[in-house]
């Protein structure tokens, strides 16, 4: 008996050591392959594999560490948080060096220097030189990047209107079709899009200079130092140059950067943007004070968007429900088809189709597309609530109304509808609160609402605790009054029985 217990303990210990050993043989690295070339992208010939210069740099690092690289797919804006919680050893996906990252994560030495450049439509190329020339115009970029910070400052200083995107492809397609007037992004991204798309010009002026780095968890300092040593070696022996040349991103800026790094000179995270006021270096109170007005503004967008789309959804939902209860068979079938289509496909897909998919036919402004997308989707759910409520009204109520001489329309509007509305109120309130939160999905259409603004705040701060708490408080401040109002209405309609 004692023997077998010893054997079991030995087996568990052996298994644990073997697992640890296997883990240490792997370098897990996180990146986002969505529109990620030349950084990270799915290999067109083998979509289950990724290719790109960051992929090859990760392989270089793994080789130097004597490990096998293992890729972890993480959304670009979540890479920092994913690394901080230990999902992967290192994050690399064109990640910018910023004071916030230096303050909250273990950041490697830079391995690439990029320039923030403006792109404009060909016709505007001769008129625009700097951001100051874009007063009152819409300038697009990726949210949570240095370029976005630059645009926020330019909003204050030059009156441009910053528009944030979730990916680096649609800013350029929207530039060409006229939804935005300029794009500010890394020269790497701009040049890649320029090779694939006509109709815009990359301006030669440099707005700011930044660097790509790898990010590790703050506790991973020793691994970061080893990785820096591998990078230095690769800079010296030309391995990095070979990788970057292969991916057509090598240029004259890189030898200068490498010379400074190898000489031990310090390299600023960003040149051309005053980062001394970064939120990452502020106290939480100061950061909250600075970001709160923009969170409030974003809450305004959320509440307007939710209220107007809910009103539209209710209106369309009532029409659909009425058609399904009173309509002829073909009308009922068509409306059922609409409801099933809207309920059976993701709202995110519907928003993409409405905004980007139909852009060739109807060029809806982002806010209008967001509003319509939410309204059309929620109308399907609302219609089912109203249909159920209409059908729940006892037939005796309708017959009593008919015997009094009311027309069918009057029966609906004076007797059936008002009673159904009382039944529908609770699920409607539920849907309104759900819509309030689902409105965060429209950030994919460049609408800067509360969740997106919070995400930007969190990225810049390097923590979700404070931004998340503020965001939750604001959502509650919006949803609780709605629930309270609905409760009051229900109580008023539910007077005591005799």
């Amino acid at each position, binding site marked *: 008996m004692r023997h077998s217990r010893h054997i079991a303990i030995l087996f568990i210990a052996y298994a644990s050591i073997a697992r640890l050993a296997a883990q240490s043989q792997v370098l897990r690295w996180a990146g986002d392959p969505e529109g990620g070339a030349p950084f990270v992208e799915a290999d067109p010939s083998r979509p289950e594999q990724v290719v790109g210069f960051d992929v090859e740099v990760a392989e270089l690092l793994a080789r130097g560490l004597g490990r096998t690289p293992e890729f972890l797919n993480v959304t670009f804006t979540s890479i920092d948080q994913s690394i901080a919680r230990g999902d992967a050893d290192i994050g690399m996906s064109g990640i910018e060096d910023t004071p916030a990252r230096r303050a909250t994560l273990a950041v490697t030495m830079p391995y690439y220097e990029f320039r923030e450049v403006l792109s404009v439509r060909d016709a505007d190329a001769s008129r625009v030189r700097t951001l100051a020339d874009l007063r009152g115009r819409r300038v697009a970029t990726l949210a949570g990047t240095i370029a976005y910070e630059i645009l926020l400052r330019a909003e204050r200083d030059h009156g441009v209107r910053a528009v944030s995107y979730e990916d680096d492809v649609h800013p350029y397609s929207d530039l060409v079709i006229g939804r935005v007037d300029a794009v500010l992004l890394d020269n790497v991204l701009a040049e890649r899009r320029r090779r694939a798309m006509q109709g815009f010009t990359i301006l030669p002026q440099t707005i700011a200079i930044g660097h790509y780095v790898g990010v590790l968890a703050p506790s991973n300092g020793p691994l970061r130092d080893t990785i820096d040593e591998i990078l230095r070696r690769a800079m010296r022996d030309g391995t990095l140059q070979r990788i970057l040349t292969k991916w057509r991103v090598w240029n004259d800026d890189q030898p200068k950067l490498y010379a400074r790094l190898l000489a031990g000179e310090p390299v600023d995270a960003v040149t051309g943007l005053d980062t001394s006021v970064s939120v990452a270096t502020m106290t939480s109170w100061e950061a909250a004070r600075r970001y709160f007005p923009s969170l409030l503004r974003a809450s305004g967008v959320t509440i307007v968007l939710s209220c107007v789309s809910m009103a539209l959804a209710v209106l369309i939902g009532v029409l659909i429900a009425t058609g399904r209860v009173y309509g002829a068979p073909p009308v009922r079938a068509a409306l059922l088809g609409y409801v099933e289509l809207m309920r059976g496909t993701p709202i995110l897909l519907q928003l993409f189709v409405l905004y980007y998919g139909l852009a060739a036919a109807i060029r809806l402004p982002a806010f209008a597309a967001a509003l319509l997308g939410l309204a059309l989707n929620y109308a399907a759910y609302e219609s089912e609530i109203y249909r159920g409520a209409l059908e729940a009204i*006892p037939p*005796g*109520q309708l*017959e*009593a*109304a*008919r*015997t*009094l*001489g*009311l*027309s069918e329309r*009057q029966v609906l509007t*004076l*007797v059936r509808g*008002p*009673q159904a509305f*009382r039944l529908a109120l609770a699920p409607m309130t539920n849907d309104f609160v759900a819509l309030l939160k689902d409105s965060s999905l429209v950030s994919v259409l460049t609408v800067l609402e509360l969740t997106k603004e919070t995400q930007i705040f969190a990225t810049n701060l390097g923590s979700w605790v404070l931004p998340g708490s503020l965001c939750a408080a604001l959502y509650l401040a919006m949803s609780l009054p709605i629930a309270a109002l609905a409760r009051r209405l229900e109580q008023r*309609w539910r*007077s*005591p*029985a*005799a």
Partner: protein
Amino acid sequence: MAIAGRMTDARPRNVVLYVEGVQLRRGARVVLAGVTCAIRRGELVAIMGPSGSGKTTILRAIAGLEPFQAGRIGVDGVTLEGGATPPSATLRALRRKVGMVFQFHCLFEHLTAVQNICLAPVHALRVAPNVAAARAHELLRTFGVDNRADALPRQMSGGEAQRVAIARALAVDPPVLLMDEPTASLDPARRTELGELLQGLLRQHRTLVVATHDEEFAREFATRIMRLKDGVIAD
């Protein structure tokens, strides 16, 4: 199934409501197998019969709520033909002639007593709201429930709800009032009050047709009793 002969020629004078050979089936089940009767203005006719004999169905057919396959129903000059969907103009005209009080009252749950009574005069007859409200209060006073004017149906007792339902039906001033099992939810004292109330309506030259199981009520207050059995008038 025998169809009763047409009684147009033999119809007694002063008939306000007639039913001629009405047949009504629900699927394979025959509910009315050729009902024929004539009711004179100012009568209170009690239709009696066992459960399932078609008492409620004949009232619903007269009120235009139940389509029937054959026969004819006429109410004060408005005729419904069996086997055809009545034109909406006919139904509109019928609603001015016939009021109905349902067994479970069917007051509109979201409206107070006064609002229930005013709804049809204001919206179907285009009576001014203040005139309709004054008439509603007068009806409630007549039936002794004016203190419940602002009560919702669920706040009323069965007897109160029934009186409000009668007031609602009378608010559009129909010459014929149909009532389905009016005594079903009443205690003896309330039943007597109801009978007296209905006799008051007779004095206003209204015609009442009451479907009931209540033999005693029928004997005491009805001017005539008709018995339905197996879908036909037995006597």
